[in-house]
């Protein structure tokens, strides 16, 4: 990584709580152009919540977000999109009763001269994007409710790609996909990376992200365990971070890292 220019995204000391539950607690992560940062951690570690702050779905209670070095406030999803941040949510966030094109353009509809919806133009654009992403996809008129998991996922991915994202957040993007489609998404990530897009790739499964990521950040119980260059660590090292919160050599530890001396005593007890 060239650390010379300022990061695309710099999130510092982010915190958010739901009631008494500190879902994200003092987490700092960053992302450079053309970089893939894998965000790892068990279910409930706070990954989705953290990136939902970046995508405008949640408001942080403390922290700072910088885009291209400039402090920004992201109060709703519209503002995130205006900054070039696109998100594929873990839940996909599709309106099940609408067709693929309506979902693709939801919130950013193509309109005619008379300000009415240009459904034909939207369907046509949708056919083009889906043609590249999922050539077998034919069910443009059907509500997405009736589509398979993989097809729904490709609609959600198409929506994030169509609007020329600079920052792409993919929350468990391959959860509903078979091996073949998962490989396709991996290809897609490599391609987007080569175009200089910064990608947060989120998963609870290290195998999904390790080979695709430049760096991995690990979260545990809402805190950051640490961030590592993938080239400096092994999968087992990262597994240790996820399960025990133990930071090996070459990892920048975060507030959630277990103290090294105590690992032997506390480690087994911390296991679920």
């Amino acid at each position: 990584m060239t650390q010379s220019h300022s990061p695309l995204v710099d999130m510092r000391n982010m915190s958010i709580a739901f009631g008494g539950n500190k879902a994200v607690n003092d987490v700092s992560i960053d992302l450079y152009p053309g970089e893939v940062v894998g965000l790892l951690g068990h279910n409930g570690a706070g990954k989705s919540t953290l990136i939902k702050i970046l995508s405008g779905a949640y408001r942080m209670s403390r922290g700072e977000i910088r885009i291209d070095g400039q402090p920004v406030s992201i109060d709703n999803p519209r503002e995130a999109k205006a900054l070039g941040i696109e998100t594929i949510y873990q839940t996909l966030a599709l309106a099940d009763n609408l067709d693929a094109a309506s979902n693709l353009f939801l919130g950013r509809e193509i309109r005619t001269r008379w300000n009415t919806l240009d459904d034909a133009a939207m369907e046509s654009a949708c056919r083009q994007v889906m043609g590249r992403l999922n050539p077998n996809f034919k069910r443009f008129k059907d509500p997405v409710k009736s589509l398979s998991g993989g097809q729904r996922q490709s609609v959600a991915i198409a929506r994030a790609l169509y609007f020329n994202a600079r920052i792409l957040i993919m929350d468990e993007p391959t959860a509903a996909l078979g091996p073949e489609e998962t490989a396709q998404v991996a290809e897609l990530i490599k391609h987007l990376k080569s175009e200089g897009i910064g990608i947060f790739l989120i998963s609870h499964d290290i195998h999904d992200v390790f080979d695709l990521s430049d760096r991995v950040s690990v979260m545990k119980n809402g805190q950051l365990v640490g961030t590592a260059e993938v080239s400096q660590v092994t999968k087992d090292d990262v597994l240790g971070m996820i399960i025990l919160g133990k930071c090996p050599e070459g990892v920048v530890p975060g507030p959630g890292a277990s103290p090294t001396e105590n690992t032997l005593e506390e480690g087994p007890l911390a296991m679920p």
Partner: protein
Amino acid sequence: MVDSSTNPAKRLLAATEADVRILGMVAVLAMIWLGFGLVTDGAFLTPRNLWNLSVQTSSVAVMATGMVLVIVTRNIDLSVGSVLGVTGMIIGVTQAELIPAWLGYDHPTTWLMALLVGMVAGAIIGAIQGYVIAYMGVPAFIVTLGGLLTWRGAAWWVTSGRTVAPMDSTFQIMGGGPAGSVGELATWMIAAVICLMIIAAILRGRHLRRLHQFPLRPVWAEWLVGSVYCFGVIGAATLANAYPWPSRIAQRYAEAQGIPVPDGGLVIAHGFAVPVLIAIVVGMVMTFIATRTRFGRYVFAIGGNPEAAELAGVNTRRVIMLVFVVMGVLAAIAASISTARLNAATNAQGTLDELYVIAAAVIGGTSLAGGVGKVAGAILGALVMQSLQSGMVLVGIDTPLQNMVVGVVLVLAVWVDTLYRKRSSG
């Protein structure tokens, strides 16, 4: 999508892209009409009765188009009958007392001002309820249940319960009757225009599909769909023109206009009633809003998945508040029709209308689970409800029993919808 089906009925449905639920509703309507026609020895099916039925349907139909949007966003509005009551009183007082005190009686713009005042009042009422629902997070069920009482009370309060009458003579046109009908020639012309619009819509659809290289409907299917619609329109026009003015009114009209009266008496056809035309225009506008505007798209997106709409950047609260504003305006238009027809504004006007309106929307295929509904369906649903009610009156069934039937039909409609959705999702 399933062209390979061998069943000819299925192939027909697929080729014409017909809406099965709406077809089903037309079938139900036909059964009700035939049933009452048989029981009443044809009295139900006379042009006179069907014409009256169309007029009686208008007010509920206007409100049902708005109820579609309300229910699609997973909300409900139990206050529409009371909002009709209070806006009706405001409209009545405005034209019968306020404007005459200022401009004198029968000023040419009185009707328009009264209508606008009513619509603004309806919009404000809708905005208040919508704000409490969308921004303060109180469930629509509770807010509009409160509104049911509040606005009925307000209707009383406008004149301390006194009935306001008569209405402005131009305003009365909105209520139908001989003076509130457009006559034979205009009826044929309107029918012709609607048929041309149907043909234009079909041609435009083909043009757009070809332009974007989407699959076209077979030509025979286009012809079939077009002829069925046009046949329906021409049938309605023929029916409306087959109902003449009562001979005494025609007589008086002829004397006033100095028209010679032929031997058999003067025959003047009613033609389409103005309130029916208002309902049709409202239906077209609401269909346009629901299907062709961003607002309409957001209404359906919110109904399908509120969280997804929010994450896509839709200002969901504003959209929901606006839906209630639209509902309030429509209640005021319905109030105009109903005060004009009654030639009076009473504080009990619109009582129990919420039941008919909700039933019309649900029978018309609007799902209480949200996200699904059609304006045209709701208008048909209103016609079904009104046909049931008028039919029961004609047969001589007492009001309490009528209410029981309406209540049972509402529950049945929701049950059928539940079954339908279970089958289509499973």
